């Protein structure tokens, strides 16, 4: 045991003070009595309680000694080494971030690190020590724990190398969490050492031995960012290209496929000279492209050489063409508020959907035409469409078989209320809404009841892969709803509810979580070769481990298959294959943990003091 603050032992002097206090404790009050006969006789009745009393007194002394000892421990901060301290242990952290996949001569840093670890393990085990290996991925794991069998260790390292060759780890690594694991193991064994195999250089590595796997002639040029944006109705493409550890002439080539709804491609390229550590933003403008299916940016060296890290040399952008949503709004008495709201929605989602609104005076002009959203106001056809979402506003009737019925009209001044937390009611306060007339809705349990008055529902919705139906059973003209801000918000929420974005972006990083919001069925994710990676019937999240193009598809209510493509890239931070940092993440955490431990000791001491105080109060209450 080592005392961090040896002067804290002076606190033990308080034990002597305690002892003196017990010796010179207040003297007994002298009391002259005629006879002590009865007091002595009373002792035989008191005897049986004496042992308890003595125990209590011993307990008090014990508590006080304990407190002083605790105080001493708090001040001296002793470090106790574990019993296993006589066995040496080599704790190895293997950085498995994407930058470790930089290669030279066909061998990656990762493979070289595994080879070195194997050699180290052999030597360590031969010296009679044990090996622990932590793989520092996004979620660090202990692959080998306190193992003294080289065969075992070698086998696991070989498996790690093979897995990396098959599927290289291209994510980021949580070095801080790995350090925590290492320090926890280190605390158990004072003879352990911590070694980090990484591709970064640390100015201050503390007690951790850092083995930098980067080689001097490794270099990388990478695309840090690539995006497209509409400028004066035409797309511009912008990229950020960086060079690390070399100076080269680089050619950036852009290929945009299926532009403007045709099979035509757009090609362009830019040459740039980059020095080590330099970044340059390039812009491809005046492309004449207002829609495209896929845009690919590739960088190559003018001298035909290859950099050490190829995963950031190409990036693709997908879905420059927006998904079309056709909306039908049919009403014998069209509502200007409704028309306005639909145009607001169209404008709001113009970067996501290409919304087309059809507003016929009657149904004749649209016979046989298919829509994604049907809005019927006042008059409902005998058979409603089943190839899209349907919203009925103040319907005169509801066709049978939908699980919803209308009651007879009610007249008066009705105030409405929200029912629960539904996405459509987000930011909506139904208590602001009033109507002079409504029809109660009777619906089965498959419907979500959103707004009600009294015991009657006035707005219900249902969304399944086969039926998407909303019923609002009051006339907008006899309500204050169109005048409220809640109206456009509620309609926008309804649109969101029926038409969620399948994926919210078209480019993601390895290790990042991708949320898929399905509105149809048979949702699948496939990679560039068409093999299915994941499938589901509803919403899900997926984490990708490999780079490249992927696609997600779903079967819509009208039977059509909607497919969207996206690209998985390595993290921008991993392009810098020769990173230099001040210190290893997690070193600060170690400090914090020590501080936390001190705090806990303090709290324990305080608790003990309080316990003794309570005991003294109880003692006093006995009038002893």
């Amino acid at each position, binding site marked *: 045991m080592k005392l961090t603050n040896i002067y804290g032992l002076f606190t033990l002097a308080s034990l002597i003070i305690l002892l003196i206090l017990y010796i010179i404790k207040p003297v007994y009050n002298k009391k002259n009595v005629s006879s002590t*006969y009865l007091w002595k006789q009373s002792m035989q009745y008191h005897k049986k309680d004496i042992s308890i009393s003595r125990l209590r007194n011993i307990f008090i002394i014990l508590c006080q000694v304990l407190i002083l000892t605790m105080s001493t421990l708090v001040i001296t901060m002793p470090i106790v080494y574990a019993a296993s301290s006589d066995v040496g242990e080599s704790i190895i952290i293997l950085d498995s971030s994407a930058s470790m996949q930089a290669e030279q001569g066909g061998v990656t840093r990762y493979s070289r690190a595994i080879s070195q670890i194997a050699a180290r393990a052999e030597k360590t085990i031969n010296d009679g020590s044990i090996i622990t290996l932590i793989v520092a991925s996004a979620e660090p794991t202990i692959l080998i724990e306190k193992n003294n069998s080289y065969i075992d260790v070698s086998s696991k390292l070989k498996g790690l190398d093979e897995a990396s060759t098959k599927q290289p780890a291209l994510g980021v690594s949580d070095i801080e969490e790995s350090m925590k694991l290492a320090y926890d193991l280190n605390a158990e064994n004072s003879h352990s050492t911590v070694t980090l195999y990484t591709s970064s250089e640390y100015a201050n590595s503390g007690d951790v031995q850092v083995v930098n796997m980067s080689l001097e002639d490794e270099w990388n040029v990478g695309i840090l960012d690539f995006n497209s944006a509409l400028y004066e109705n035409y797309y511009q493409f912008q990229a950020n290209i960086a060079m690390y550890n070399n100076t080269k002439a680089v050619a950036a080539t852009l290929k945009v496929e299926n532009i403007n709804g045709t099979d035509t491609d757009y090609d362009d390229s830019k040459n740039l000279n980059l020095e080590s550590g330099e970044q340059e933003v390039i812009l491809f403008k005046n492309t004449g492209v207002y829609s495209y299916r896929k845009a690919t940016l590739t960088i190559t060296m003018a001298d035909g050489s290859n950099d050490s890290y190829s995963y950031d040399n190409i990036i693709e952008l997908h879905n420059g063409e927006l998904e079309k949503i056709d909306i039908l709004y049919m009403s014998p008495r069209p509502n200007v508020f409704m028309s306005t709201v639909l145009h607001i929605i169209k404008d709001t989602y113009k970067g996501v959907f290409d919304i087309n609104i059809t507003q016929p005076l009657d149904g004749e002009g649209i016979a046989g035409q298919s829509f994604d959203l049907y809005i019927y106001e006042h008059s409902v056809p005998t058979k409603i469409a089943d190839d899209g979402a349907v919203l009925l506003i103040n319907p005169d009737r509801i066709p049978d078989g939908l699980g919803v019925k209308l009651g007879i009209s009610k007249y008066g001044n009705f105030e409405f209320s929200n029912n629960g937390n539904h996405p459509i009611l987000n930011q909506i306060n139904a208590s602001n809404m009033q109507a002079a007339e409504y029809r109660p809705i009777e619906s089965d349990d498959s419907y979500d009841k959103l707004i009600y008055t009294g015991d009657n529902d006035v707005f219900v919705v249902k969304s399944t892969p086969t039926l998407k139906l909303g019923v609002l059973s009051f006339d907008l003209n006899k309500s204050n709803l169109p005048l409220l801000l809640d109206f456009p918000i509620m309609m926008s929420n309804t649109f969101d509810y029926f038409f969620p974005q399948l994926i919210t972006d078209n480019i993601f990083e390895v290790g990042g979580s991708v949320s898929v919001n399905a509105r149809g069925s048979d949702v699948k994710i496939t990679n560039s070769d068409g093999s299915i990676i994941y499938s589901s019937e509803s919403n899900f999240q997926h984490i990708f481990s490999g780079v490249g193009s992927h696609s997600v598809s779903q079967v819509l209510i009208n039977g059509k298959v909607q497919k969207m493509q996206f690209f998985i890239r390595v993290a921008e931070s991993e392009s810098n294959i020769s990173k230099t940092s001040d210190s290893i993440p997690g070193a600060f955490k170690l400090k914090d943990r020590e501080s936390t431990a001190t705090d806990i000791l303090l709290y324990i001491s305080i608790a003990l003091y309080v316990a003794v105080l309570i005991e003294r109060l109880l003692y006093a209450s006995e009038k*002893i």
Partner: protein
Amino acid sequence: MKNKYLSSEFFSLLEAQELSLKKSLIGNFGGKHLTDKHGQNVEFADFREYQLGDDIRRIDWNAYSRFEKYFIKLFNDERQMHIKVFVDCSASMGADDCNKGDYALALAASLGFLAVNNLDKLSINLIKENATTNTHGVIISKNAFFRGISDLDSVIFEGDAHISEAITKNSSMDSAKNGLCIIISDFMTYNDWKKAVDYLIYSGGQVLIIQVLSEAEVTPSYFGKTNLIDSESLGLFDDKNFKLKISSRNHKSYEKAYCAMIDDIKSFCVSRGAGFVTITTNTPIEKAIFSEYMKAGIL
């Protein structure tokens, strides 16, 4: 008079009272106590046939005229009782925190007055260490009584009192036959005082135990770390003294010990046919006499 309990008003209250005995009396003639013995008194007791040697003057001729037999009249005899009072004069009776000594002397004086007022004999014996001291011998008149009790003021309560040794060694067995022996003490002693009682009862006398305690002894009110100094101790380090952390639990134990002591004395007295009275000094002495004495059957 120093003793606050003894006054002329107090003694005037006792004028109409007399002591009674449960046992037959074989004392001297001249007293006022009727006995089961036949004598020359005027109080008729019974008839008996004349026997040879009887005084012919005592033949009842009226009975002879009716029965033609000689009968003589028998009359109850009156004897003089000897009241012997033993007072514990140890230091515990005279401790500063109580007035047990004065109270005990007042009780002794009251019993003495009752004795001499009924033409009985009285002797007051002060118990100190292993001996009894009879300061005024046998008192048979009120004048002698009042002279005697005036000297009781000078009694000093000190040292120990070995009741057993003092009574058995220094008391005459013959005198015990003639009446009532009264022991007044706090009985908070390791001495085997029961031997003295047995001795007196064996001698043929009637015994009354009067225990005098102070209020502080019955219900002590002090708490905390206390060095209890016994008034009979010879110094601070005497075994009779001891230190104690007095808690409510100790008080309960003390109460148990007190009850056990009373029960022990009471059961012993019952087994021996002796009377027992326990009195605390905060009880007015008149009440002690007229209430407690009557309960004990000596008034």
